[in-house]
Every structure is written in structure tokens, then in C-alpha cells.
């Protein structure tokens, strides 16, 4: 009967999702990058936390090039982050010919003679001729006052930092040292500085079961133990130099010998810091699974299925809706597991930075949407909204992952799991509720424009639902904002400082309050309330992103190219939709 068919469709969907994940992961393994697995699993301490080379390499490549791999023009092949990273460490001359720097600004290109080129990716060697000028201009830009900074200044500054990082990566390991050679003091200083600049600790403690604080800077270690490095330890110990030699002997290919050396080095490190390594292993597995990246196309697919189902006859609709809803529920479970993994790996509540806020906003809004769908709507709208939110937030999260380590450590003043779990989570729930409210409002508008059967009763039901979500949004936003104030009062004695992020949160509370009072005072009816609901997405986006892009205050996370423009475009589009929704529509069916 219908229920057993229902069951079969559900199981089949779950099975297909499982198959999709298995296939994509297996395919990943088959590609060249998987031969680097042993190398990629090696843990290092960077930015104050232990992480596998895999994460570190990928984050570095993404922040330099804006992509997760480099396209080689000559062969058309792609150089992945692990292979690239090994090159930078062990064969820096070759690495400096790889186009890993993204430069789009014409005037910046002019500095190294490439203004005529249509290329966007350049190698260190290509930029070499302009290096001095870039350093000069960057220094001048740093000294300038904020309001005088031009776009050119910001681009130059960023390029300068990227070049510095690349230099430090290629200098942090003296891979060319011959057996028995002793490093000069100047060479040692270069290594110490490079490692410090990268916040890198490459040398694990010699004894067993040591804490993270016992890891050492490679340069300072070599200064104290000059003879230990080469060749591969007289005591049978492997180290970075063993790896370097194995790599060079194999001409940059991860052959058996190289992989063996990596594996044995990994075992050594495991005994020295077993707890930290445990987490590094799990992090490695987590990034192999890449649950968020893999879920993204499936969320999109679910939305498309629901759209398609609305154009079928009612019988087929039910089946396709089942497929879509099962798919979404499965994705929700994966999303939850992904978040739980991050909590375990970072040892923090789910929201600690912009990236994790994107993932969490998605998760919370999807949870609400699916709940509303299953309890109230039962017509696929909730599911459709869930898929839109899932797709959008995961795309945003993916873009944010280019900023660097998404599991960075928290500085002292933010180091409070209690407040991270209360204030931050509740405010983020407020964001989710506002996005849900906005999407419900857009759906309401589209239905009244496009659907011939949007009855009065349905209008009222939709309106009541949106009103209800607005109340929740206000509750979460208000409580979250005030908790932030209380945290500030406990931390530095000032409840409210009018800083951009606080102001952004206040604007959300004000807007939700305005919506409720406008409705109460008769200033707006259904259409007005709906329009205001759509606009609340603009305010929320400003509060979530806009305030971070200003680069001021405690909550500033840094400047991202073009992000402000993209935000402005999205907000303008939403505002237009909100205004358009005020237009009177014809309703053909009264009931």
C-alpha cells in the first residue's frame, strides 16, 4: 500500500545518498592526491593547534591562490595542495615557477610587467621583478590612515603578505643541506624567522606523551642540535630531512620509499604526543569525508526535485516529495554529524568564527524549516526553503574557507566556552530565524503571484506562520544581544559599546520590533508585513557580514576582496523583491 511504497522510496533515497558519498570518496582516493596520504597525515603544530599537513597545505594554497589546486599551463594538469606543499618545502626553486598567486588588479600587474597579460595567476618568479616596488608600496599603504586607503593599497598589501608567506614556506626547511653540512648562523636565523612568521612548530618532543607546549621551532632546535639532522638519524629516527631526501631522490614523486618514510615519521610523532595526534588523525579523516562540500549539490538537487514535483499531478507529487524530504532529512543528519565532528575537533561550541557561523545558521534554519514542513505545511514548501538555505549557506561557508584555518584557536578574551555556547549560539539562532522568516515571506509572495490556488485561508495560514517565526526571531535576537552585553560587562565593565557588531545585532532587534509594532498599529497589513519580512534578510545579512567587513572593533575578521560589493548586490536585490512584493496581485480563487 501507500505506506510500504513510501518506505521503499525512503530507503532507496538513503541508499543513493550513501552510494554517492562512497563513490565520490573512492574517486578522490584514486586520484593522484591519494598517493600523498601518508605525507598529508603527518601532524604539525601551526597557529597554536595540532593539525595534519593536509589541512595546513590546503589552507595555505587556498589563501594564496583562491583555489584548491593549481592549473599547470604546459601540461593542463592540476597540481593539488599536498603535491604543491611538498614542492614548496622540498624543491622551492620548482615551486617558485608555479602560478599560485592570484592577481587581478591591472595596476598591480603593471608593477611586474604583466599589465598586458589576460592571466590572473602568476608564479613567484614572474612577480620577482616587481618585488621591491611592491614592498615599498605596501609599507607606504600600511602607514596610511584608514580613510585614505585606496583599492590599490589594499591589493598591494595583500599581495605583499602572500609573497611573504610563500617565502617563509620555502625557507622554513633547509631541504638542500647535504649530509654532514653545518648551517651558518645567518641560515639558522632565516629558518627561525620563517618558522616564527608562519607560527609553525615542526619538531615534536623527543620523549613520550608530551603536551603541545613541548613542540619546538625547527630553527631553534637546529641551533641547539646541529649534527642531528643528517643523514636520516644515526639512531634510525626519521625526521623532515629524511623526507626531504626521499622526495628529492624520487624526483618529486611520492614513491614507495617516500611514503614509507612518511609512515615511519608519523609513528614516531604518534608516540610523542598521542592525544594531540588522535585529534589530528580525526581531522584528517574529517577533511577526507568533506561532509559539507559533498552535501552542497545534494541540497540543490532536493530543491530541484521539489520544484519539479509541484508541476506533476498530485499522485506523482507525493512520491517525489517523499524522495526530496528523505533526501533532506538524510542531509540534515550528515550536517549534524559534521557540526558535531567540528565541536569535537576544536573543543569548542559550534560557532566560533564566520565559517562555523555559516554552517550553523544553515543547520538551524534547515532544522526549523524541516520541522515546520513536517508538522504544519506538509506541501514541500518547508523542504524547498530548507534546500535553498542549505545550498546558500554551504556556498558561503565554502567561500569563507579560503580565509585560512577554520578551526583556529580563540584569543584570550574570547576564550570562554560558556559565552560561546550561550550568547553566540542564541544570536546565531536569531539570524537563522530571520532568514527563515524572509524565505517564508518570499515564498508567500511567489505563491500569490504564480499560484492560481493560493486561497484566502492559505494566505492567512502563511501569514500567521510568518508572524510566529518573527516572534521567535525577536526573542532569540533580543536575548542573544543582551547576553552579549552581559558578557562585555563581565569582561571589561561596559555593557554596551556601540561597536559595529553590537550595532548590527541591535538593528535586527529593532527591525523585528518595528515589524510587530507596525502590524499592531495598523500601519501595515498582510502585504506590508510580508515585505518587511523580506527586508529583514537585508538587515540580518548586514549584521552577519557587513559589520565584519568594516574591519573595526573586536569582531572584525578582516577584509575580503569584493565581498562588500557582493553583499551590496544581494541586499539591493532583496530590497527590490521586498518592494515588488507590495504590488497588488489578482487572486482567482476565493475560499
Amino acid at each position, binding site marked *: 500500500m501507500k505506506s510500504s511504497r513510501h518506505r521503499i522510496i525512503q530507503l532507496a533515497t538513503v541508499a543513493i545518498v550513501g552510494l554517492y558519498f562512497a563513490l565520490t570518496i573512492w574517486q578522490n582516493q584514486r586520484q593522484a592526491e591519494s598517493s600523498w596520504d601518508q605525507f598529508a597525515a603527518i601532524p604539525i603544530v601551526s*597557529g*597554536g593547534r595540532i593539525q595534519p599537513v593536509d589541512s595546513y597545505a590546503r589552507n595555505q594554497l587556498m589563501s594564496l591562490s583562491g583555489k584548491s589546486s593549481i592549473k599547470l599551463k604546459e601540461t593542463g594538469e592540476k597540481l593539488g595542495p599536498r603535491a604543491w606543499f611538498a614542492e614548496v618545502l622540498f624543491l622551492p626553486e620548482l615551486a617558485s615557477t608555479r602560478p599560485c598567486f592570484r592577481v587581478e588588479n591591472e595596476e598591480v600587474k603593471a608593477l611586474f610587467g604583466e599589465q598586458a597579460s589576460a592571466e590572473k595567476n602568476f608564479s613567484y618568479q614572474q612577480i620577482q621583478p616587481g618585488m621591491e616596488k611592491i614592498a615599498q608600496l605596501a609599507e607606504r599603504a600600511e602607514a596610511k*590612515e584608514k*580613510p585614505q586607503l585606496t583599492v590599490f593599497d589594499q591589493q598591494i598589501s595583500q599581495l605583499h603578505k602572500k609573497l611573504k608567506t610563500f617565502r617563509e614556506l620555502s625557507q622554513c626547511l633547509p631541504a638542500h643541506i647535504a649530509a654532514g653540512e653545518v648551517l651558518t648562523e645567518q641560515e639558522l636565523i632565516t629558518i627561525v624567522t620563517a618558522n616564527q612568521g608562519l607560527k609553525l612548530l615542526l619538531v615534536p618532543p623527543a620523549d613520550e606523551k608530551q603536551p603541545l607546549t613541548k*613542540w619546538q621551532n625547527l630553527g631553534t632546535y637546529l641551533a641547539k642540535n646541529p649534527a642531528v639532522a643528517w643523514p636520516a638519524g644515526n639512531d634510525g629516527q626519521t625526521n623532515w630531512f629524511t623526507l626531504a631526501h626521499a622526495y628529492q631522490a624520487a624526483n618529486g614523486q611520492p614513491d614507495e620509499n617516500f611514503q614509507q618514510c612518511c609512515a615511519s615519521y608519523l609513528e614516531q610523532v604518534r608516540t610523542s604526543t598521542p592525544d594531540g595526534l588522535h585529534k589530528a588523525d580525526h581531522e584528517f579523516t574529517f577533511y577526507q569525508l568533506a561532509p559539507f562540500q559533498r552535501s552542497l549539490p545534494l541540497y540543490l538537487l532536493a530543491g530541484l526535485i521539489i520544484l519539479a514535483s509541484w508541476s506533476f499531478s498530485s499522485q506523482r507529487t507525493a512520491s517525489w516529495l517523499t524522495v526530496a524530504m528523505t533526501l533532506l532529512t538524510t542531509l540534515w543528519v550528515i550536517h549534524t554529524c559534521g557540526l558535531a565532528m567540528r565541536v569535537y575537533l576544536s573543543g569548542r561550541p559550534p560557532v566560533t568564527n564566520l565559517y562555523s557561523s555559516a554552517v550553523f545558521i544553515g543547520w538551524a534554519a534547515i532544522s526549523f524549516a524541516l520541522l515546520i514542513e513536517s508538522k504544519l505545511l506538509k506541501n514541500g514548501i518547508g523542504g524547498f526553503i530548507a534546500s535553498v538555505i542549505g545550498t546558500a549557506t554551504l556556498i558561503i561557508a565554502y567561500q569563507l574557507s579560503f580565509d585560512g584555518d577554520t578551526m583556529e*584557536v580563540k584569543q584570550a578574551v574570547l576564550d570562554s566556552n560558556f559565552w560561546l555556547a550561550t550568547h553566540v549560539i542564541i544570536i546565531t539562532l536569531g539570524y537563522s530565524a530571520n532568514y527563515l522568516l524572509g524565505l517564508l515571506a518570499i515564498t508567500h509572495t511567489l505563491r500569490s503571484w504564480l499560484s492560481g490556488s493560493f486561497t484566502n485561508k492559505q494566505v492567512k495560514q502563511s501569514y500567521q506562520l510568518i508572524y510566529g517565526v518573527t516572534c521567535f526571531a525577536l526573542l532569540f535576537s*533580543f536575548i542573544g544581544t543582551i547576553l552579549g552585553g552581559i558578557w562585555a560587562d563581565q569582561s571589561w565593565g561596559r555593557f554596551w559599546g*556601540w561597536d559595529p557588531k553590537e550595532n548590527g545585532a541591535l538593528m535586527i532587534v*529593532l527591525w523585528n520590533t518595528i515589524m*510587530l509594532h507596525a502590524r499592531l498599529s495598523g500601519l501595515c497589513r498582510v502585504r506590508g508585513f510580508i515585505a518587511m519580512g523580506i527586508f529583514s534578510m537585508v538587515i540580518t545579512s548586514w549584521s552577519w557580514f557587513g559589520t565584519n567587513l568594516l574591519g573595526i572593533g573586536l569582531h572584525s575578521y578582516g577584509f575580503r576582496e569584493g565581498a562588500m560589493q557582493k553583499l551590496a548586490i544581494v541586499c539591493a536585490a532583496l530590497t527590490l523583491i521586498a518592494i515588488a512584493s507590495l504590488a497588488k496581485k489578482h487572486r482567482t480563487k476565493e475560499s
Partner: protein
Amino acid sequence: MRHMTQTKSPLWRALAPLASIRLTVGLLVAAMVLVYFATIAQADQGIWEIQRRFFRSFWCYYDFKSTPVYHSADDTTEPAKVLFRLFLPGGYLIGGLLLINLLLAPIFHYQLKWKKLGIWAIHIGVLLLLVSELFTGIFSQEGKMNIPEGGQSNYAEKVTPMHTEICLKQLPANDTSVNSMSSAASATGRPNGEFAVLQNDFLVDEPVVDPSSQLSIKVLTFFPNALIIPRHTEETGYYHPPCNRGSGLHIAFQPQPYNHLENNNPPNHPAALIEVRDSRSNESIGKFFCTTSIHAPDRFEYNGHNYEISLRPERIHLPFAVQLDDFTFTRYPGTQTPKDYRSEVTLIEPDGASSRQLSIWMNHPLRKDGFTLFQHSFGSQEDSTVLNVVKNPSWPLPYIAFALVTFGLIFQFSFSLTRFLKPASSPANKAS
């Protein structure tokens, strides 16, 4: 639901518009617009400046500017130009009207029924929040306390934003100590023999008289910020201050714009040309040029007494002293990111007898005698601590407000929620 009365008094009719919920909406929209512009203005103005201009005022403006343009051809930058000035109502105006509106609206629209308890709680709570921000602006005092390891201090300095005071100190007849800053604190906090004139009080035309010494202090010129160099270096662009006594004779100065960003880059060092006279005979004792960047006060002798005069950041005197025993700083391994920094201190009571040892660290302040001491930052050599000292008598207000509004919101929304979840028998559309 309008509260209908049979006879509407003229007062009622006059106040009714102020209780309108449409006015509430208008004021909230104005508040949003103000907050938005105050936020983007922070890109090039410091947060204290923004607070003063946008929120602690009745009106303000925001300048729309063009972006600076760089020309690589001749290596010049066109500065930003002001395109349009938008005038806005300020925090006091919007807040003031909101206060009235918040009070009157429930009185006019809702009777005192227990069902409306939620609305009343919300409104009173929000009112308390507004009042708390107002009181904080007026009554709160905040300063930084710099203590080197092994040293102690019983005062904090108002450096962000910079408030100064001129300190005239009469030294005891037999006091020849070089370091005059280590006097014992009196019960009121300020050391005996010190007479201080605050910045707001000395930036006037009339001289201020010290009652105990009968000397008068008048500030002839005041510079919010100045760079000081030794006079003998004879650099161009620096002026000789027109003083006739004190350390000012050996320095040259250059006035600087005040750094509103308060980020210590560059730091703000006010300077003042001060004339000291005998208020009885109006005889001029001397003109001194004092600045906060020179810590040692200027000494002078008059009528058999020794005096010291200096310009220094305004002090908040504590009724107890804090001694820094140890400052520890932990970083995340391999980085400069601070993981934890804390001060191990000893609290010394004014009678000098009793003392307590405790720690102050991030998110864990010390509260005593109405003052709260927070771990703020540390000296560049990491062997001294900087504590943030706050005295804000209105600190409980936001907590009370939070409890009231949260209770009110939940109370109110549970009504709506129960109505929403009930099967729709009668269209109870009107929100309560």
C-alpha cells in the same frame, strides 16, 4: 484596543499623540537609521568620538564622501571629498522621545490587567535599558591602572578618551624626596596636599584658586596633543613654549591633531601653558609648560613653601591599593596569540594592616567598594599589567531589564503561540 474613556481631558488629548504606536514605529526606524550611520562612520572615527557625536547628542550628521583615487602615473593620491551631509536626530532626542512613548503607550492603550503583564514587563524593561545607557554615559567612570611587577598603585588614569587634570601639590616643609608620587592615600582616595583641577574646569577664562595655598591656576593655552623634543636639537617646525620656569624651558613642541581612534598609534599627549599667581596679590609666580609625556612635575618655591605642578591624566582614586606580585602570560604554542594572561595581586587596605591575595584574569574581574578591576592588557615588556578600572553605579540596570523583557516576551508570545496552535475555530486575527 483603545482605552475608551467617557470624557477625555485636554491633557489626555495633548499627550495622546506621544503615546501612539505609530510614533513608536517612527522612532524605532529613526533609531535604526542612526545606528547604521554611526556604524559606518566608525571606519574613520574612533568609537568614543562616535558615541559622543551620534548618541550623546540631540542631533548629528553623516558625511557621504568619495573614495580616494590613486594615480600610478604620477604616484599621487586624490583625497576623499565630501559629497553630501546628511543631518540626523541624535541619541538623546530619539531616546528621550522613546522614553516618553514607552511610558505613555501602555498607559493609554492597555489597562492594568494581569493578561497584559507581559507587555508592561517588556516596556518597563526597555525603558530601564534606555535609562541605563543614559546613566552610564553620565555617571560611569573608567580608567587604566598601570602596575609594574613588584609595584603598587591606588589610582587609575582616564586615558581613553584622554581627560587631564592639573595637579598642584604643596610639599611638607621637610620633604625633599625626589619621587613625590608615593604619598599615602587619605580616606577619600586623593593624597593629602594635592589640589587638582579637571580639564573641564580649567578650560575657562577665570583662574581657579586653591583654597589651601591661595595660589591661582590659569591655563593660557591648551593643546589636545603635542610632540615634545629637547630644545637643543633645534629641529624646524617645533616651537619654544613661552614659559619662564620649569622643564618647559628645555623643550620644543609641535601641536598634533588629537588621535580620535584612541589606538595609541600615535598616542595622545596633551600639553598646556599654565600661569600660577598669588591670588591675593595677583603677583605672577611663573608660567609653566606642562605635558603628560613628561612625568616629573615642575617644582617651585613661593613664600617659604615648596610646590609641584604637573599636567597628568585625570585620576580615579581608589580607597585601596593594588600590588602586582606576578604577571603571567601564556601563548598558544608557536604563536603570539594570547591564550591566557593574568595578574597575581595583593589587595592593600587603607589602614595598611589587612591584605588579601588573589588573581585577576580575562572574564574574571575583582570587585571591591563599587569598583571593578578587569585584566585589560600588559606592558610591552610583559613585566607590568594594565587593569581596566570601572565604577558604574547603574550596572545592575541592564540585568534587571534583561530579566523583565525576557519574561515579558515569553509571557506575551506564549499567548500568541497557544492561539496559533489551537484549531482555528474563530478568526482571532488581532494580535494582543
